[in-house]
């Protein structure tokens, strides 16, 4: 991976670890749910939005061993961390337990998934950091799970971008209160955890439509979170928008600010222009970035001015997925050394409370 040198020692903020098979979770699942899974013949919760045979689902070489791509910690370590790889990898496991409609089963599966992550991934290498998987079906159970697992390698809460209702609504606030109290951000990643599709207009016919429209769901969710007052109620909360592009955000902020001037009386708790709230509370991963085919410094200057701050950007590789064809270094090459340092390390170290210095010692 010769092109990795530009990102050597980075914090890779979007690495997807996968469950090799459902039974891998059974040691961490209550017997009643183990038998429920066995007796009903459930085969697993591999996300439907990454069909294993689809050409974009996995980069070459990531299908090592028997399990799905990203399921072997040694392979992921070799591909993501070792050599000229990342200093830390933030694991976002997309095993789709949030799709379960039974809130108790979903919460139990999420707990088992997190305990499996601790035993299998966090114990394997201290450069791995994991996201706490929770179901939005029962926000109080999700909050308890955040309280139980935050810290000791778990640095983030992971929610699917599409939930049963807009994520700003008050029923979800126990999740944000718990994340704020635990000092971990909440990440939204494309994925479906309810009856709603990723598209705002209904279920599309084709795989390509989900990918091309990924930003639309995130636009709706961040609009909901600002308008409902999530950040007014939880001023310490940070939200990370994963794998949905970056360059769409300025246009949303322009429109949101304009409409706020006329309609802010509906939401008087939004006391500042929404763009100010977003810049203070939101970060985005840079894979994909969604830029013109060739970008130069003038374009980057203009974009960063529109975005508001380079401190909102997090480097990500999206391993093992291979959707975007963006050269991960196209943006980095145009950044100043100070800006590049922030995108590659500083912003992630801040939001994930990572140690400032690279840790050579294995084990805490």
């Amino acid at each position: 991976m010769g092109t990795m040198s530009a990102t050597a020692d980075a914090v890779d903020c979007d690495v997807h670890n996968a469950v090799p098979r459902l039974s891998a979770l059974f040691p961490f699942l209550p017997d009643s749910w183990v038998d429920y899974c066995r007796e009903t013949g459930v085969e697993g919760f591999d996300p439907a939005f990454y069909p294993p045979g689809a050409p974009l689902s996995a980069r070459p070489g990531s299908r090592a061993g028997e399990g799905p791509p990203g399921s072997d910690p040694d392979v992921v370590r070799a591909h993501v961390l070792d050599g000229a790889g990342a200093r830390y990898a933030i694991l976002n496991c997309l095993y789709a337990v949030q799709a379960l409609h039974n809130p108790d089963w979903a919460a139990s599966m999420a707990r088992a998934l997190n305990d499996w992550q601790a035993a299998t991934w966090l114990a394997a290498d201290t450069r791995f950091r994991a996201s706490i998987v929770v179901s939005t079906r029962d926000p109080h159970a999700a909050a308890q799970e955040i309280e139980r697992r935050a810290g000791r390698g778990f640095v983030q809460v992971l929610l699917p971008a599409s939930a049963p209702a807009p994520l700003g609504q008050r029923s979800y606030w126990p999740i944000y209160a718990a994340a704020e109290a635990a000092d971990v951000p909440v990440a939204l990643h494309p994925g479906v955890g309810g009856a709603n599709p990723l598209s705002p207009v209904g279920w599309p016919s084709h795989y390509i439509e989900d990918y091309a429209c990924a930003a639309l769901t995130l636009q709706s969710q961040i609009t909901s979170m600002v308008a409902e007052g999530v950040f007014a109620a939880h001023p310490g909360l940070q939200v990370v928008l994963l794998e949905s592009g970056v360059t769409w955000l300025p246009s949303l902020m322009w429109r949101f600010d304009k409409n706020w001037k006329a309609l802010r009386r509906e939401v008087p708790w939004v006391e500042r222009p929404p763009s100010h709230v977003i810049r203070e509370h939101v970060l985005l991963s840079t894979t994909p970035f969604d830029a013109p085919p060739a970008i130069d410094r003038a374009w980057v200057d203009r974009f960063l001015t529109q975005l508001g701050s380079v401190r909102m950007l997090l480097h990500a590789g999206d391993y093992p997925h291979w959707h975007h064809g963006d050269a991960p270094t196209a943006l980095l090459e145009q950044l100043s050394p100070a800006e590049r340092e922030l995108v590659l390390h500083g912003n992630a170290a801040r939001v994930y409370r990572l140690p400032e210095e690279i840790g050579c010692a294995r084990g805490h």
Partner: protein
Amino acid sequence: MTGSNRHVVVAAADEIPPGGRKIVHIDGRSVGVFNLGDRYVALRNTCPHEGAPLCEGALSGALTSPRPGEYHYERRGEILRCPWHQWEFDLRTGRSWVDPERLRVRSYSVTCENDHVVLHL
């Protein structure tokens, strides 16, 4: 606002009751004169945003919130909303709600002398 020396009688005192307004035209300027009950105020009848006849807008109160779901509503009748885009302006200061430092409408002092409302231009 002050320091001017042009005083113009624009209405009889009972012509503008509390909560009422009168729009007057003086030297090509359109000005809205409002009776807040405790005093009169006057604003240029031109929204600094896009030039709408601001003083024809609805009068409302000041809506704030200490936290989501709680509404504090006070100063009824003292917040003017532009008829075009609903931007809010404080009648007492001419300052906009959304950008009070930079976005404001010219205000004029008004006095009541011998049962006449006098605008100081």
